[in-house]
C-alpha cells in the first residue's frame, strides 16, 4: 500500500483497558502545519463495488475523520418525498403511516441537478426544486378466478402496491431534461401496502431536496462509518489444539494455521477486535492486540442516487463551503 514504511502509532487493547503506547505522545503537543499534514495524509481505495466503497485514510486527526463521517450522514443533500396529498385512501393502512412510508422511498434523482426550496417558494414548487409523482392503484377481484383457488395473486388484481407503481408527473420542461429512469424509485419492488377488493389508493407525492440533519430520509448513505486498523502480534508459538482455539477467538480469516499446526496472523484488517482471547488463561499472554491510532478505514454504503465516492467528495466540499462562507464574512467586516 504505502511504499515508505512509517512508524505506526498504536493503541493497545488489553483485557480491561485501552493503553497508549508509552513512546507515543499522541496528539498532545502536535503543532498544526499544512505542509506536515500534506506529507502525512495518505488515501488508499480498497474496494468499490455495489456493496459500497471502502477506503483508508491515514494520518488525519480524529476530529477531521469524524467531521467527514458526520457530513456524509447528515449534510450531503438528496431528494425525498416531503409532501403527500391523499385524495383517496380506503386501504387499512392509515394516512399518516402511509405518508411516512412514502417519505422513506429512495429516489434515483440526482440532488445536484435540483435547488433547495426556499421560504418564498410557492406551495406548488417549480421545475427546478420539485419532483411530482402520483400513485393510483385500485384492487379488484379477478373474474376468471375459480372458487377453489387460494393464492391471492390468482384471486386479486393489484393487491400488492409496490414502489414501481409510482408514476412520475413531469413539471414544466422536466420531461425534456430527465427520463423516467433518472427520477423514479431506485428499487421497484418495495412493498408499500396490501389491498383487498374495493380498496383504493389515490395519492399525489411531492419530492424536494433536503438534508439528513432535517430528516434521515434525506441522508444519501445507508451507512457511513470508520474504524481503526487492527494489528495483531503473536508473542510466542501457539500450536496444536491451542492454535485452533486461538483461531476461533478472532473473526474468520484473521488467524491462519500452517502445515505444522502453528498459528500465524493471516490478515488482521477484518478482525472485529472482540478481545475473546482474554477468556482463555493459556492464550492470554500469546497475543498483543493493537490498533493504529491514525489509520481510518472508511466504509460508505450509498442508498443509490449518488456513487459513494461522489458522496465523500460532496461531503468534503460542504465543509470547504462552510469555511469559505465564514472567511468571507470575517473579511467583509
Amino acid at each position, binding site marked *: 500500500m504505502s511504499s515508505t514504511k512509517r512508524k505506526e502509532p498504536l493503541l493497545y487493547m488489553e483485557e480491561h483497558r485501552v493503553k497508549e503506547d508509552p513512546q507515543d505522545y499522541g*496528539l498532545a503537543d*502536535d*503543532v*498544526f502545519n*499544512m505542509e506536515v*499534514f*500534506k506529507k502525512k*495524509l*495518505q*488515501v*488508499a*481505495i480498497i474496494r*468499490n463495488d455495489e456493496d459500497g466503497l471502502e*477506503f483508508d485514510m491515514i494520518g488525519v*486527526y*480524529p*476530529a*477531521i475523520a*469524524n*467531521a*467527514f463521517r*458526520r*457530513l456524509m450522514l447528515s*449534510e450531503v443533500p438528496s431528494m425525498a418525498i416531503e409532501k403527500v396529498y391523499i385524495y383517496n385512501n380506503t386501504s387499512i393502512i392509515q394516512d399518516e403511516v402511509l405518508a411516512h412510508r412514502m417519505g422513506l422511498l429512495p429516489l434515483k434523482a440526482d440532488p445536484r441537478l435540483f435547488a433547495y426550496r426556499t421560504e418564498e417558494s410557492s406551495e406548488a414548487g417549480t421545475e427546478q426544486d420539485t419532483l411530482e409523482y402520483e400513485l393510483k392503484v385500485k384492487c379488484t377481484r379477478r373474474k376468471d378466478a375459480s372458487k377453489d383457488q387460494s393464492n391471492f395473486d390468482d384471486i386479486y388484481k393489484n393487491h400488492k402496491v409496490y414502489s414501481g407503481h409510482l408514476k412520475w408527473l413531469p413539471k414544466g420542461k422536466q420531461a425534456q431534461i430527465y427520463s423516467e429512469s433518472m427520477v423514479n424509485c431506485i428499487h421497484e419492488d418495495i412493498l408499500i401496502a396490501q389491498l383487498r377488493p374495493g380498496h383504493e389508493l389515490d395519492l399525489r407525492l411531492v419530492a424536494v431536496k433536503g438534508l439528513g440533519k432535517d430528516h434521515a430520509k434525506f441522508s444519501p448513505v445507508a451507512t457511513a462509518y470508520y474504524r481503526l486498523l487492527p494489528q495483531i502480534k503473536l508473542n510466542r508459538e501457539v500450536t496444536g489444539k491451542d492454535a485452533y482455539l486461538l483461531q476461533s477467538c478472532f473473526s474468520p480469516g484473521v488467524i491462519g494455521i500452517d502445515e505444522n499446526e502453528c498459528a500465524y496472523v493471516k490478515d488482521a484488517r477484518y478482525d472485529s477486535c472482540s478481545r475473546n482471547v482474554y477468556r482463555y488463561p493459556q492464550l492470554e499472554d500469546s497475543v498483543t492486540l493493537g490498533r493504529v491510532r491514525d489509520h481510518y478505514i472508511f466504509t460508505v454504503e450509498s442508498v443509490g442516487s449518488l456513487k459513494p*465516492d461522489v458522496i*465523500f*467528495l460532496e461531503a*468534503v*466540499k460542504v*465543509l*470547504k463551503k*462552510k*469555511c*469559505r*462562507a*465564514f*472567511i468571507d*464574512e*470575517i*473579511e467583509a467586516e
Partner: protein
Amino acid sequence: MGALAELAGDEKNGEGSRTFVFLNEGHTLGNALKTIIARYPEVDFCGYTIPHPTEQKLHFRIQSRRDRAVDLLKRGLEDLEALCDHTMEVFGKEMNNFNAANSRSVQENT
C-alpha cells in the same frame, strides 16, 4: 444576516480573547476547527461548546496573548479549507488510479 457574531464581555481583555457565535453550526465544524486552532503555538486556549442542544448555536472561544483572535479564527478556517482541498485532490487522484487499474484488469480478463 450574518451567521457569525461575537459574544459581549471581552472588551477589556484586548483583541486576543474572544468568544465567537456560529449560527446553524454544530460539532462537525466546531471540533474540526478546534483541533486545528488549538495546535497553533500562538494560541493559549481554544475550545467550543454548544450551550443548548435545541439552539443551533456554536460558541467558539479563542484566547491568545500574541495575536488577535479574529486573525487566528480566520487562519484556522483557511487551513481547514486548504485541508479540504488537499483531501479532495488526494482522494480524487487515488480514485482515478483505482478505476484505471480496475478497468485494465477487467479488460485483461475478457
